[in-house]
């Protein structure tokens, strides 16, 4: 009887150990498909590639991808113009006001093709997967609702509330009036 109970408990515990899936390598056809966004005529908003749904939205809820996005934000000089989300010569990413849209497709087009008021194009500097990782990270920077996945803790100076705060809206404070 005791043996059965122990075995049952062990089985229960083992089932709870589900590690997050990390897709370290996308097949080239999947990468090419991820590049096929269909933006609107003004390049703001549009249809995301179907393959994102098939992959299970890996750039929204996967902590590894969000952490990679955070690393790329430092490595590719985003901080020089956007600071840690507060903005400098570039607009702020913290305040929920997005010049060219905050949905994933708009952010993807912004990063890949640049924008006409000074945002450089990163399509020739980053791969499609890296751009999607950045998109996922940017959507956590100024977020006002908690999510299950968050990027890792800061390696650099902490200058603003962390991405994995919860409840988000209470600690972030009110955005500046416009």
């Amino acid at each position, binding site marked *: 009887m005791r043996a059965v109970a122990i075995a049952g408990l062990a089985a229960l515990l083992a089932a709870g150990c589900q590690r997050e899936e990390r897709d370290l390598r996308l097949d080239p056809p999947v990468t090419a498909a991820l590049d096929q966004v269909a933006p609107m005529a003004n390049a703001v908003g549009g249809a995301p590639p179907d393959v994102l749904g098939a992959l299970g939205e890996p750039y929204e809820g996967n902590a590894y991808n969000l952490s990679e996005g955070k690393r790329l934000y430092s490595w590719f000089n985003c901080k020089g113009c956007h600071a840690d989300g507060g903005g400098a010569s570039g607009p702020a990413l913290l305040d929920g006001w997005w010049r060219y849209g905050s949905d994933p497709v708009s952010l993807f087009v912004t990063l890949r093709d640049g924008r006409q008021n000074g945002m450089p194009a990163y399509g020739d500097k980053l*791969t499609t997967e890296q751009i999607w990782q950045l998109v996922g990270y940017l959507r956590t920077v100024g977020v006002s609702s908690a999510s299950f996945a968050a990027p890792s803790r800061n390696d650099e100076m902490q200058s603003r509330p962390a991405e994995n705060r919860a409840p988000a809206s209470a600690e972030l404070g009110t955005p500046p009036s416009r």
Partner: protein
Amino acid sequence: MRPHPRLAAAALLPLLTGCTGPQSALDPQGPNAASLAWLIWTFTAVCGLVWLLVLLTVGIALWRRRASSGAADEPLRPESATERRKQGVVIGAVVATVLIIATLTLMSFVATRSLTASSGEPLTVRLRGYQWWWEVTYTADSPDRFVTAANEIRVPVGRPVRLELSSGDVIHSFWVPSLAGKQDMIPGRDNVLTFTAERPGSYRAQCAEFCGMQHARMALVVIAMAAPEFESWLDAQRQPAAEPADEEQEAGRQVATGKACAACHTIRGTRAAGTVGPDLTHVGSRQTIAAGTLPTTRGALGAWIADPQTVKPGNKMPMVPLSADELRAVSAYMAGLK
């Protein structure tokens, strides 16, 4: 089946092959590693001897216990003769233990001290560990003669080399067993490791502190060369990247400087000036690529560039989509960067 002694001995022989090779602490090629190896053998011998003695003593005690059953009647009454003998044994063992430990400690202290002693003007090399590669910088009297390379250290024979160790992200550890012991590379702290290579040769080193997904593939080659050859190698490394030798290599240079490669890597003399990945100015002159993972051949370069995530899953180099022609061209160019 009866144990055959000769067969048993022969079966143990293959184990001895682990003692030699380019990455072996038991096959020292330099004075540092030699003193460490001596320590290893001494400790093994002494502790082995102590172990045998202890086993022997336990064996004798058990045998004696079996033999003398008379003591079972009144086990708590001490018999003066055997008591004195037992006292003698215990005191003797304690004294021997203290002496042995003190001696071993002293030997260890002396050996460790001798690791940092060096004669002659050391060559200073800065080694900085990143996930999962090594940045090697040879300093000089003026900064425009600095050489920045990656994943390979070349040293002159007979001259002490002073490695200044640091880390760019997490704790790594540098270990070249044939030449020296381990030394950690800790972010925010500067450590130093000094060693001398006595003979020319190629020695494999690796990271000895778990540092993430590809810790197992973070290796390095230390190559010892005669001093004049070392100087001419260093001069060659100071030159900017070799010019493309043919059209294919020229096309490869266009790919390397125009695509995402330039955003992370530096190829001096071209417009590729990224600093977050290894310096590729003389990548063709190294013995291995991807931190000791693959040999430096055109085919391996092509394989690595085509799909780094299969070779070393989780490393920071992305899979840049290239057409077959581009891949051929860029692998030719990289192989030609000697």
